[in-house]
């Protein structure tokens, strides 16, 4: 706020890490109560990636041809992409649930509790990420009979990287919901407009190497590209440079997201 910077104010006491983690757990748990009280919604969220994998995978193999996948089987190449996609869709919707709470007074009621501001975003983002752990493992297991080779620890590490990325994306989604307030169409408009270019330019669905030069260059500026590459490396059972770059991209996204998100909360309540 203008005029506020000129004022000398006592430094705000920051909550410690243990407090933030505890608060994250509470916020996460409150969000989890919704699917837990209505478990049927979880069944659908498990079916979705299977349908995608089952219907899109075969088309991909025959349309693009095996050489484009760098020597991997189509499934081995495509499955990590699907997992990233679920994470992308899930965590980018973090803000949409918030919009309902903005319209009633429940967001304000929770703001008035001692919960730390960052925990509000992290807890909500992690709730969107949590089903991914189950989804990711499930589709991996289901794909084993079709030639997919499962490396459980690698996959788990991959899911954790996606969780870090999800916190960042979730926080950005949260900020977007605060900015668009009760105008839902703004939230969905921006979310959809950004989501698809990011997704296509990361090589989730089709190998970016098959595209023109400018797309390859554009993909280098897309954090999602590094994430997808990291997941592909991990799902193939290796840990290397791609994994590190992916972890870095996820951490940067998380840091940027949280800074933007906390600022949005503080500005919004003004």
């Amino acid at each position, binding site marked *: *706020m*203008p*005029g*506020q910077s000129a*004022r000398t*104010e*006592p*430094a*705000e*006491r920051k*909550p410690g890490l243990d407090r933030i983690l505890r*608060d994250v757990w*509470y916020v996460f*748990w*409150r969000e989890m*109560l*919704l699917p837990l*009280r209505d478990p049927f919604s979880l069944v659908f969220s498990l079916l979705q990636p299977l349908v995608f994998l089952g219907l899109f995978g075969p088309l991909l193999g025959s349309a693009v041809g095996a050489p484009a996948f760098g020597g991997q089987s189509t499934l081995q190449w495509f499955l990590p992409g699907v997992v990233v996609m679920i994470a992308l869709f899930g965590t980018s919707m973090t803000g949409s649930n918030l919009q*309902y*709470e903005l319209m*009633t*007074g*429940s967001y*304000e*009621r*929770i*703001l*008035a*509790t*001692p*919960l*730390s501001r960052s925990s509000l975003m992290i807890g909500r983002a992690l709730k969107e990420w949590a089903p991914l752990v189950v989804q990711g493992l499930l589709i991996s297991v289901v794909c084993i009979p079709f030639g997919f080779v499962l490396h459980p620890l690698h996959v788990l590490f991959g899911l954790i990287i996606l969780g870090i990325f999800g916190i960042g994306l979730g926080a950005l989604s949260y900020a977007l919901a605060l900015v668009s307030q009760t105008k839902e169409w703004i939230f969905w408009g921006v979310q959809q407009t950004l989501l698809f270019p990011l997704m296509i330019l990361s090589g989730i669905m089709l190998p970016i190497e098959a595209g023109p030069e400018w797309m390859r260059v554009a993909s280098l500026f897309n954090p999602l590209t590094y994430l997808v590459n990291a997941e592909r490396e991990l799902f193939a059972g290796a840990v290397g440079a791609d994994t590190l770059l992916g972890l870095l991209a996820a951490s940067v996204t998380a840091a940027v997201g949280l800074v933007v998100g906390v600022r949005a909360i*503080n500005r919004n*309540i*003004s």
Partner: protein
Amino acid sequence: MIHTNKLSRTFVARKETVEAVKGVDIDVAPGELVAFLGPNGAGKSTTLRMLTTLLKPTSGSATVAGLDVVADPAGVRARIGYIGQGNGGGHSYRVIDEMVMQGRFYGMNTTDAKARADELLKSLDLADLAKRTVIKLSGGQRRRMDVALGLMHSPRLLFLDEPSTGMDPQNRANLWEHIMRMRAEHGTTIVLTTHYMDEADSMSERVIVIDHGTIIADNTPARLKADLAGDLLAVEVAAASAAEVRGLLGRAAAEGEVEEHAYDGVVRFRLRLSNGSRLAPELLRRMHDAGAPAQSLELKPPTLDDVFLELTGRSLREGAEV
């Protein structure tokens, strides 16, 4: 319990600066029940939101429950309860789940939170609805749930923003009964905003009248009314004796202003009298002695709206949007 020093808040909208709250000094002692009264947009809610750390002051300072609102907002929030204008329960949640989570947000363990939730739901007549989804509650039930949520951690200082707006009279009375009982039991300090003057009048012990972002009066409702408004007296006399009565009333009137209105051989006088119920009999006797007896008399005790009118020249009713 609350101490503010020149607490101010300005908003900038479309390059226009609006001073919502202009340097208010407020002191509230433990156990008080204080109402912020004023029309919509007067700065009541903005003040309340600064005191509850939901809004940062532009300048000035405030200490709430012993802590500075800017230096330790989370600490302040842990010590106070806040019941906002909207409904606090998430629509898709079960009542009991929201209650228990609210307790956990304040650092209670699950066992204590469950016990406290059961106790509150019982005392607010919501026990049968514990497993119901919030969206299925009626308006009055939801508002009682808001109160229950605000009381989960047994705050010693409770803020209520327009607690009964939009409620029917029965539910309002019911809500107040709960708030007053809780106050009697725990000695809770209560600060609320309202634009219902009858509510401020009957419920609070102290009224802070806010208009255009400043405090224009701060006293008990009774003192405000006696000092600033006085009773409204209307007397009708025969036109022939109007001259004597005019003189008599002119000397008695609080502000010396007497309105008169003649019709059908009768003159109707209206004036403000401080302490009218004591003065009126004496006035009647004198009129009788002067050979100008009253044909009718009407005496109306003042309302806080009269106080507001006296202070600002505007009626609170006109200012209040519906």
